[in-house]
């Protein structure tokens, strides 16, 4: 098909707009990477813009030498892996029964969980609840906090509802009970769904900081994001407020960039795999209400 002149112009304009979108999205991340490798002096005088100036691994070396980074990294992996596991077990155990139209009281149970999306007790009552349960400053609190996301329950339930009933009926005839049917029939059929919801939980766990910050006092238990909050935000403010740029202040800034790189790296490596699932999830969530 021949393109008219107007269409050609449109395509060119659109191409440049898209290029701009990509640049705006990528540049902050690109800058962080090049700044972390650059000479601290060049970064602090603002001469690093498109390519690294000098090449130094000193900032990374400093970051790797900090013990608390590794502890926090380990904690994040622990919370993300076991937290997501707990998320999935609870979510599946709730979503599967709720996907059965024959279940008596299904509407009541649905209302029971939906209410929590519209109204919650708020920060202080929730915080005091953790404290009263003896969970303050424990790893268990971080695992239990946000162990179910109602939105994900609804997603999972929608997926289960789409599995044809005939599968269940034939298994019932063979004498299988509901646990067996869930494990042997529904779970294998819902692998894409399970992957999607797992990703949602995992990314959420990896990136969350707020409740970990509230619930943990012991620095050896904090996840990476809480430590990063200290390093990135607080150090950066102190750099900004420094009257004269001493050598230590300058290196602090490239250390901040190096820390960001290390913190974001796993997500960016996983990203191409994750994003497909994310998109799938949002579409299912939108179709069904």
């Amino acid at each position, binding site marked *: 098909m021949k393109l008219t002149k107007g269409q050609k112009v449109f395509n060119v304009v659109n191409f440049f707009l898209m290029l701009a*979108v990509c640049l705006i999205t990528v540049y902050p991340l690109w800058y962080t990477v090049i700044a972390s490798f650059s000479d601290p002096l060049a970064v602090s005088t603002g001469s690093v813009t498109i390519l690294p100036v000098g090449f130094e691994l000193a900032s990374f070396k400093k970051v790797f030498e900090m013990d608390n980074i590794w502890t926090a990294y380990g904690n994040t992996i622990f919370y993300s892996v076991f937290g997501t596991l707990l998320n999935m077990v609870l979510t599946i155990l709730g979503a599967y029964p709720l996907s059965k139209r024959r279940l008596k009281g299904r509407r009541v149970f649905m209302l029971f969980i939906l209410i929590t999306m519209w109204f919650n007790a708020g920060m202080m009552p929730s915080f005091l609840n953790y404290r009263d349960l003896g969970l303050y400053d424990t790893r268990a609190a971080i695992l239990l906090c946000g162990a179910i996301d109602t939105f994900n329950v609804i997603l999972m339930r929608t997926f289960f509802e789409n599995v044809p009933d005939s599968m269940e009926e034939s298994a019932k005839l063979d004498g299988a009970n509901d646990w067996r049917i869930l494990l042997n029939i529904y779970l294998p059929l819902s692998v894409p769904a399970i992957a999607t919801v797992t990703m949602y939980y995992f990314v959420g766990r990896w990136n*969350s900081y707020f409740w970990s910050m509230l619930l943990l006092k012991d620095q050896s238990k904090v996840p990476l994001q809480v430590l990063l909050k200290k390093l990135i935000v607080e150090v950066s403010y102190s750099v900004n407020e420094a009257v004269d740029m001493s050598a230590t202040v300058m290196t602090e800034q490239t250390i901040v960039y190096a820390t960001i790189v290390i913190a974001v790296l796993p997500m960016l490596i996983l990203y191409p795999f994750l994003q497909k699932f994310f998109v799938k999830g949002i579409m299912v969530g939108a179709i069904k209400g």
Partner: protein
Amino acid sequence: MTPTAGKTRTQTQRFWHSVLRDKHLYLMMIPFLLWYIIFCYKPFGGLVLAFQDYKPLLGIEGSEWVGLENFKTFFTGPFFWRLIRNTLLLNIYNLIFGFPVPIILALLFNEIHHSKLRTVVQTISYMPRFISTVVIAGLVVNFLSPSSGIINTFIKMFGGEPIYFLTRPEFFRPIYVLQGIWSGAGFGSVIYYSSLCSIDTELYEAVMIDGGGRWKQIWHVALPGLLPTIAIMLIMQIGNLMNVGYEMIILLYQPVTYETADVIGSYVYRLGMEQANYSLSTAVGLFNGVISLILVTSANFVSRKLGDVSIF
């Protein structure tokens, strides 16, 4: 025995029969429901704090009841209007400047006919969704740094004076809205893009046969096709007018910018966690929760009336 009584008995029997039949399903739900009871419903009891002068040493039983005193303190306090104004304004700016961006992005993505190129652009634009609040805040703080931030480097390059953006109240709202667009617009376009994909291609062809160009196609086919989704997303966002991402705000604000940056969520956090004023914090949170509940349920009601698609 009357026939109705007989019928009710069989109904109850049938009910218990099906409960017994599905006993394993109910068993499965126990841990799930317990979590909701312990972590979502039990804290509701803590809301009594809002009506007390809570002292941690005395506990809920021993603390004095003060009725609506905490609410009165909040409503007549110096921060009430400032918090309402900041919360609403940040959301309204988000609505005006942030809301259209994913829609425009989806329309432009839809106009890329080279499918590989489109996938690449979309994949890149979703990326910030995977970056945590803390890291985004760190990027904002560093990029806006007066001494070495890249933004000020550009300002200096063009002969301007560096500005310490994060200490200037007038810049807080644009900064907040812009970081929100950067991190959310790409991924936000997914929902619009997926409804664009479901538009019948014959409609585009019809416009083309009538001699309409790309703009005509967007205006007469794509945009009308998106309207139901736009309406629902808009209603949802209006329903959330009283909720702001305070987790981001507490990373970006400083006492000098509280004037424009402090919102209800961040105030609740500061009162409770930093000043240990549990009662007032709970009262402010409860006030916010009730208003949000009213807004969200009315938004949901409207969207259900409008069409069969609703988010929740």
